């Protein structure tokens, strides 16, 4: 099933380049992403039953456990929703002459190639292969960022490729040192194998492993948009087509964090405490939150503002992983899911607003609520949700992280954390809320023009409202499985 999923994505991506006709492309995309979502459901069920899924094929490279299953589910769920949204979005772009049929095919090809590389990163056992797949995500999405091919998007694409490639090269140095630290322990077929590394973590050479962790944190941290390596992120998120921004923010950042979390598990098991990784992660997390808070206060464009909010949330997750208690890990994983759903909903509503008004500056937009009867309120509620207002899910995961911070007796840290959250809330309220009220200028027509997209937005809103109050038992069990994988306390079959 897992290999089938990867194969389907790869083949679909190539098909987009060969097939003619808009309707055929949209249809294929919808069918493929729905199929993938179904497949992900089946795989998750298997993970819930057996703890992990592996196949003997191709040297047993495929490996899925609770941790990767959570993120894989996010990838494929958002992949499906973004596919549905893209139909309406691209049709509107097509009507305005922004894209022609050939570029439509290229868009879908790149989007599926992007999803394929992210799925690969999440389902391989070998840390080296994971690195390759994460680097490949940059390459697959570079032309998506530069899709509109104007001055700003080319600049964003160049910065994205250069900064992320160099960052990821630093991570490779970390992987090399990880490999070096295990040379006297592992035998050739197991080299760089995550399960083998984790099982024998105590035997790895600690000094080299520490060096490896620093490089991996900086390297994958660049990709995850952690400050001060975040400089590519606002440009890339604001210049990419909005459905792609949703994928970048909701999925790509998680895949990069996933690489860090896997390494943290090994290093903490080796050192016997989380003091070393915790210090670094908490520092980098707080720095990301503070950077984001400042830039959100002074931001002039709504998509860039949301991009900075992604940096803030990645900081929150890094901080929670740094605390490294069972409760904080649970909160971090839950926050990953909640942030992905909420933020992609926001970027998709941005797409609708952008197509309506045609401008990115906050100051030039008025009356979203009256002009967009459904997307407008959804956008507003989404902003409240992402800033951490109850009853939405981001509030519940932030609350559990705050609880975990105080339970770990980090009172000062907890206070700073809450202060930064409040600052971000204020920044959001000050800069964004004025977009919604007042009368629209000019002769814009009231109404939604992306019908499937509007349905997607409402689905996402329902999802984040429900999971804020009630966590399905299956999801809870999956989260607990993932938490055990990170913290330890469960034997793994290599």
């Amino acid at each position, binding site marked *: 099933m897992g290999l089938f999923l990867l194969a389907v994505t790869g083949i679909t991506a190539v098909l987009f380049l060969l097939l003619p006709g808009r309707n055929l492309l949209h249809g294929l995309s919808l069918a493929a992403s729905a199929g993938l979502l179904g497949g992900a459901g089946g795989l998750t069920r298997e993970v819930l039953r057996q703890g992990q899924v592996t196949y003997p094929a191709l*040297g047993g490279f495929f490996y899925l456990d609770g941790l990767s299953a959570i993120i894989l589910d996010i990838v494929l769920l958002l992949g499906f929703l973004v596919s549905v949204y893209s139909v309406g979005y691209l049709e509107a772009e097509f009507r305005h002459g922004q894209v022609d049929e050939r570029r439509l095919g290229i868009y879908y090809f790149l989007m599926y190639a992007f999803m394929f590389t992210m799925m690969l990163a999440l389902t391989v056992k*070998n840390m*080296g*292969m994971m*690195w*390759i797949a994460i*680097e*490949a995500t*940059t*390459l697959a999405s*570079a*032309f998506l960022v*530069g899709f509109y*091919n*104007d*001055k*700003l998007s*080319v*600049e*964003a*694409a*160049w*910065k994205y*490729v*250069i900064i992320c*490639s*160099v960052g990821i*090269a630093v991570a*490779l*140095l970390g*992987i*090399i*040192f990880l*490999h*070096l*630290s295990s*040379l006297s322990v592992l035998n*050739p077929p197991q*080299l*760089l194998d995550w399960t083998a590394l984790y099982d024998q973590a105590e035997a790895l*050479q600690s*000094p*080299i492993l520490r*060096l490896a962790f620093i490089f991996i944190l900086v390297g994958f941290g660049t990709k995850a948009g952690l400050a001060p390596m975040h400089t590519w992120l*606002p*440009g890339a998120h*604001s*210049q990419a087509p909005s459905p792609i921004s949703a994928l970048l923010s909701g999925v790509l950042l998680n895949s990069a964090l996933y690489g860090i979390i896997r390494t943290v598990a090994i290093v903490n098991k080796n050192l016997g405490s989380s003091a070393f990784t915790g210090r670094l992660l908490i520092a980098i997390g707080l720095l990301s939150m503070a950077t984001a808070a400042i*830039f959100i206060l*002074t*931001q002039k464009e709504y998509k860039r503002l949301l991009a900075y909010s992604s940096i803030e949330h990645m900081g929150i997750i890094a901080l929670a992983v740094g605390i490294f208690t069972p409760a904080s890990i649970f909160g971090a994983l839950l926050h990953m899911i909640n942030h992905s759903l909420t933020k992609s909903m926001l970027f998709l509503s941005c797409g609708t607003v952008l197509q309506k008004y045609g401008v990115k500056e906050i100051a030039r937009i008025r009356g979203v609520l009256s002009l967009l009867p459904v997307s407008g309120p959804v956008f507003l509620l989404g902003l409240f949700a992402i800033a951490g207002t109850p009853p939405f899910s981001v509030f519940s995961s932030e609350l559990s992280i705050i609880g975990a911070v105080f339970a770990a007796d980090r009172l000062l840290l907890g206070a700073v954390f809450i202060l930064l959250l409040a600052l971000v809330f204020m920044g959001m309220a000050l800069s964004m809320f004025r977009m919604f009220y007042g009368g629209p200028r000019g002769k814009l027509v009231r109404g939604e023009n992306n019908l499937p997209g509007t349905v997607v937005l409402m689905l996402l809103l329902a999802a984040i409202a429900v999971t804020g109050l009630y966590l399905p038992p299956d999801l809870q069990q999956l989260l607990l499985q993932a938490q055990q994988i990170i913290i330890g306390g469960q034997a793994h079959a290599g």
Partner: protein
Amino acid sequence: MANYLDALSVLILVSSFVLVANKRISSYIATFRLQSLLIALTAGMMGLQSLRLEGRVDVLVVGLLIVSLKVIYIPNLLNRTFAQVEYRVEKDFFLNIPLLVLICCGLVVFSYFSISTIAGINAGTINMQVVNSVSVVLIGLLFMISRKKAIGQMVGFLVIENGLFVTALFSTHGMPFIVDMGIFIDMITAVLIMGILVFRINEKFESINLHELKNLRG
């Protein structure tokens, strides 16, 4: 054998100093070619050794790939890109060359002191091969931030990649074969994508000077 490898690692380091001292785009592409040749030689020697001792051919295959990709294909690609986007030779660096070379010396000293304090990499004596190759990575980073042209950044990226490759070679005798192959595929795709983006930058901004790319800030 160890002596030859030591000598090669020093030569690779020297070639990155030469790279920093190069003024023109065409000459630093040539230096990159030379450095890749030295790395291919290193991989070839280690490959022959592992063939003799363990009967493995994978390091040799990797060496051959370096010759075909980094010595022949990529430098030619860079030269072609350069020929199509730039007609004049301009001053292409922020700091002057003697200062850059001094900073490079500082980087080598820095990596010497940081690597030599880490137990495990050094078995008794300090592993100068790893020090040299980590220095190449740092010099590659310095090169990237010291050049104003997009092609300079591409060359810097490739030098970092070279440094990483020799670090892996000297410290661990190469990564697992499948990982090495994947890294090559990623690298060649990255270079192709950057090449296309250089054309687009040239087309939109009418030059490949990166100081014009300052619209997305804050």
